[in-house]
C-alpha cells in the first residue's frame, strides 16, 4: 500500500479538486431534543456543508448504492405483446467524502452478495463502481462494536483513507485515481515520525471501545439457543417496524412491486428494501406465513447476519456500527440481544 501525508489545511483543496463531480458526505442535519448534533449523509454543495467531525450518521451510506426504492424496469404494452426497458439508474460518478471504516466494510460485505459471481446485480454494481470513496478515521461512540466484528479498520473498498494526525492527514492510497488527486495537492511521503504517530492514533482508538460483542462460536451458539426464552422477550418488545433494517448499512432484503399506469399502456417494476422484521416478510400466497411471530422474525434477522452469512462468506453481515440499536425505539440492540441469547444478561 502507498502512504502519503498532507497538511490539514490542504483538505479543502482536495475537496475542490474532487468537487467537479457530485459530492456526497456527512453533514449536520440539526439538533436532537437534548441539543446533540444529528448527522446524515447527503449531497454536498460546498466544503462547508461537510461535517468531518461527525459522529455516527442516522442512516448508512447504502442508499447511494442500494436506494430504498428503485425502478428496475419499465414496460410498453401493446395488446399481447410488450417491450421491457431495463435502466440501472446510474449516469455519473459520485465522490463520497468522509466514510468511516464500518460503512466501507459494509459496502465490502454488500459486494459479496450483490456483486458476487452468482447473478451479479448490475443496479448495485453500476453504482458501486462509480463511487470514489475518501475514507476517514473515527473515534468510537458508546454504541460502536465494530471492533468486535472486526470491521473497525477498512483494508479495501475505498480509494483513499484519511487518518487525522492533528495537523496533517495520513493517507492510505488504494487507487491510481486517488494517487493522481493527491499528487495535485502535493502530498508528501510520510516520515518515520508520521508512522509512529499513525500507529499511536490507532492504538488509542482501539482502547476506546466501550461495547463489545462476543463472537466466538456465535454460529453454533445461535443454533444451540434456537429455542431460547430470550428471543420471546425481545420479540415482545419488537414493533415489527423495520427501522433496524432501514438504518442498517448491510441489510439488503427487498420486495418487488409491479404497477400499471392508469392508461394501461405502461407498467413498471419497483424494488423496495424490505425488512425481515415486517409481518409479511415470509408470507406466501394463500396466506401462509412462515414466520408469523415477532420473535421468530427478530431471531431470523440475527440468524441471517450472524450465522447464515458467516457460513457462506466466513464473516458476519454485521459491521457493528450500532445504528439499529440507536434507532430502535424499543431499545433492542445487538450487543444486548446476543449477550442474552448467550445466557449472560
Amino acid at each position, binding site marked *: 500500500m502507498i502512504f502519503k501525508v498532507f497538511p490539514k489545511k490542504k483538505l479543502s483543496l482536495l475537496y475542490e479538486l*474532487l468537487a*467537479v*463531480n457530485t459530492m456526497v458526505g456527512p453533514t449536520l442535519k440539526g439538533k436532537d431534543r437534548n441539543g446533540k448534533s444529528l448527522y446524515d449523509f447527503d449531497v454536498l454543495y460546498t466544503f462547508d456543508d461537510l461535517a468531518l467531525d461527525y459522529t455516527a450518521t442516522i442512516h448508512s451510506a447504502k442508499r447511494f448504492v442500494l436506494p430504498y426504492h428503485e425502478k428496475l*424496469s419499465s*414496460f410498453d404494452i401493446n395488446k*399481447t*405483446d*410488450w417491450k*421491457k426497458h*431495463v435502466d*440501472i439508474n446510474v*449516469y*455519473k*460518478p459520485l465522490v463520497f467524502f468522509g466514510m468511516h471504516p464500518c460503512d466501507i466494510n459494509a459496502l465490502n460485505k454488500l459486494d459479496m*452478495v*450483490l456483486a458476487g459471481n*452468482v*447473478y*451479479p*446485480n*448490475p*443496479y448495485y*454494481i*453500476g453504482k458501486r*463502481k*462509480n463511487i*470514489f470513496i475518501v475514507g476517514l478515521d473515527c473515534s468510537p461512540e458508546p454504541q460502536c462494536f465494530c471492533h468486535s466484528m472486526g470491521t473497525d479498520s477498512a483494508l479495501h473498498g475505498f480509494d483513499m483513507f484519511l487518518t487525522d494526525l492533528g495537523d496533517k492527514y495520513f493517507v492510505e492510497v488504494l487507487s491510481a*485515481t486517488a494517487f493522481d*488527486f493527491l499528487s*495535485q495537492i502535493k502530498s508528501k511521503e510520510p516520515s518515520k515520525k508520521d508512522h509512529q504517530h499513525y500507529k499511536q492514533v490507532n492504538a488509542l482508538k482501539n482502547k476506546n471501545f466501550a461495547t463489545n460483542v462476543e463472537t466466538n462460536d456465535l454460529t453454533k451458539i445461535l*443454533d444451540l439457543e434456537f429455542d431460547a426464552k430470550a428471543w420471546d422477550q425481545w420479540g415482545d418488545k419488537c414493533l415489527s417496524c423495520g427501522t433496524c433494517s432501514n438504518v442498517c448499512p448491510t441489510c*439488503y*432484503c*427487498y*420486495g*418487488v412491486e*409491479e*404497477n*400499471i399506469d392508469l392508461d394501461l399502456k405502461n*407498467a*413498471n*417494476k419497483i424494488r423496495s428494501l*424490505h425488512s*425481515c422484521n415486517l409481518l409479511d*416478510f*415470509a*408470507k*406466501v*400466497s394463500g396466506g401462509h406465513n*412462515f*414466520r408469523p411471530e415477532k420473535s*421468530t422474525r427478530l431471531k*431470523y434477522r440475527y*440468524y*441471517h447476519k450472524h*450465522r*447464515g*452469512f458467516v*457460513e*457462506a462468506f466466513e464473516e458476519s453481515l454485521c459491521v457493528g456500527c450500532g445504528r439499529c440499536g440507536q434507532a430502535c425505539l424499543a431499545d433492542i440492540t445487538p450487543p444486548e440481544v446476543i449477550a442474552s441469547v448467550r445466557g449472560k444478561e
Partner: protein
Amino acid sequence: MKNKLDFIDIMHGSDGHHRKEDPNSFEYSYQAEITNVYSLTKTEKLYQIQIADPKLRTKFTFKPGQFVMLELPGIGEAPFSISSSPVRHGDIELCIRGAGNFTNFLSRVQRGTKVGLSGPFGTHFPVEKMHGQDLLLIAGGLGIAPLRSPLLSVLENRSRYGRVDIMYGAKNPDELLFTYQHEEWRRFDINLDITVDQADKQWQGRTGLITEILKERIQESTDLANNTFAIVCGPPIMFRFVCDMLTQAGLPMQKMFVSLERRMHCGRGKCCRCNIGSTYTCIDGPVFDYWSVMNLKEAI
C-alpha cells in the same frame, strides 16, 4: 476537465460486468410465448411456454426439479417448477395454480401472449445418481407439478432404473392433475397408484391417504436401505409424514428428496425472501435431501 471522474458504464462499456446477452442476468429474461393453455382442474392450468428465439430455445436446458421465474409486466413475477421433461429444452410446461395476483391473471391470458422467462434456477433431483436403483416417486396435491419432470425423465430412461413406483394422492377426484396422462404412466413396468381422500360417485380407484399405499409398498420391499431412492413432493405435512415413514422403514434420509417452497422475488439469491434459517431456497434449493431439511432450522 481532468478531475472529472471517468464514468464506468457497466452495461455497455468494456467493463462488461453484466452480460446483457445472457437472459438470466439480473432483471433480464428470455422472450417467450404462451403457445398453449390447458385447463386441468378448476384452479390449475397447464401452460406450454416456448422461448421465442429458436437458438436460445435449444440452448435452454434444465434438470428435473429446477424452476423458472415467469413474468408479466405490471402483474408480477413468480417462481414455478418446470413440469415437463428435460429433453424438451426451451419449450416447457408449467402447471400453475391460481393463487394470487400473478397466477390468477395468468389464467386469463390468451394463447400467444408474450411472457418473460428466466432460469432455470436452483438445485434439481439427482436422477442420474439414482441409476440402477428402485425409485419411489410420491406426490400429494400440487406436488405432482414438480414431480412430473423427474417422472417423465424416468419414464424416458426407464431401463436405467430398477423398480419404479409412482404414488399420487389428491383430496378428491376433481383435483387430480394430468388425468389424461395417467394411462400413459400406468405401464407394465411402472406401478402407478392413485388415491383420493374423498371419493365421488364416479371414482373407481383407491380411497385413503397416500401413506396407506406407502405402507403396503414398504412391506413388499426387501432392501429399502440400500437399493432405493425417493422423491417426495407435496405440502410440508405430507412429505414429513411420508419421509418419516420411510426413515423408519430404513431408507436413509439423504436418499429422499423434497422440494421446498418459500416466498421469492428474484430467484437469484438477492431478495433474501426465500431464506430458511439462513439458507437460500432459490440457490441452495428448492430441492433438498431430507437429511438437510431435518438440519435446517424452521424448514418445516
